[in-house]
């Protein structure tokens, strides 16, 4: 792992991020926080409907917020890669990072299961339908895993000392 960390740190892009003006890290952090609010707000709306809240809203309509969740996820992927590439030693061996990635995978697989297996049937339900158990399970897994991603992301500095980031 040390060789891996050193290899990343030795790249020109990693060095240029590190030598970057003081504002790069706080700028990316601010964007990362805005991205997470957008992601959790937009995905959360869809998840809450899957869980059976907001009867009267069809899943088809609730789905229209999903592109904003994807936009938030994209912002956070880009800024997250910048964090990782500039200071890989803070993340590569950090257990909090592994939990964060684990829950990202859980959220991703959950989306895949929804898209491939349940989407057509659930989206055909009328607006005031009671949600079937499958929808509730998918909604619950999604909500829990996104908040877990947030939780382990925020705990990152406390499992490995982080010289650059503030508190």
């Amino acid at each position: 792992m040390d060789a891996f960390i050193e290899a990343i740190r030795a790249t020109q892009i990693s060095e240029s991020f590190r030598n970057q003006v003081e504002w790069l890290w706080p700028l990316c952090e601010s964007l990362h926080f805005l991205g997470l609010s957008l992601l959790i707000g937009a995905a959360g709306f869809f998840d809450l409907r899957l869980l059976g809240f907001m009867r009267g809203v069809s899943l088809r309509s609730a789905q229209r917020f999903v592109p904003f969740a994807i936009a938030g996820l994209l912002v956070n992927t880009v800024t997250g890669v910048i964090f990782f590439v500039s200071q890989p030693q803070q993340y590569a061996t950090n257990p909090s990072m592994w939990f964060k990635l684990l829950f990202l995978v859980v959220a991703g697989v959950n989306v895949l299961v929804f898209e491939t297996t349940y989407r057509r049937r659930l989206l055909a339900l009328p607006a005031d339908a009671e949600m079937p158990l499958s929808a509730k399970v998918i909604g619950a897994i999604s909500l829990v895993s996104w908040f877990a991603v947030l939780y382990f992301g925020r705990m990152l500095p406390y499992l490995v000392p982080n010289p650059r980031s503030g508190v």
Partner: protein
Amino acid sequence: MELLTRLQESDFAAWVASSPSLLAYPSILTLHTVGMAIVVGTCVVMDLRILGVAADVPLGALRRAPRLVWSGFLINAATGFALFTTDAEHKAMQTVFYVKLSLIFLALVVYARIRKLVFLTPAPVPSSMSVEAKALAVVSLLLWTGATIAGRLMAYLL
């Protein structure tokens, strides 16, 4: 000032700041971020709906959104106070701290106004939102963006 010193030297502040437990400072800080995601996320969804996203979502569906906003706000008022006690004398001197509080205050005022305008009006809701509602939704998005950035900058600016 003396009050801030006493706050910072209280047993509670000492526990939050220096307990080795992950339940102290790290978890309180993380809860503060969870609360932010709930408040800002809910407001952003409402603002987007007012601006025309998912126009077929009935407004009545957002009737219970205030519960989410206020519970998120309460989490953050409580965790924010706990975080403040650990560094009260310094934070009370930070301009960006007052900028953040002002932006949050304004965002909540705008939120209450939007709610009154859009959700509590007895008249049937027109299919397209009034110009005032849309303008307030844009202002709301800007205020929450500013509050988030100001919060982050508290770790960087003196």
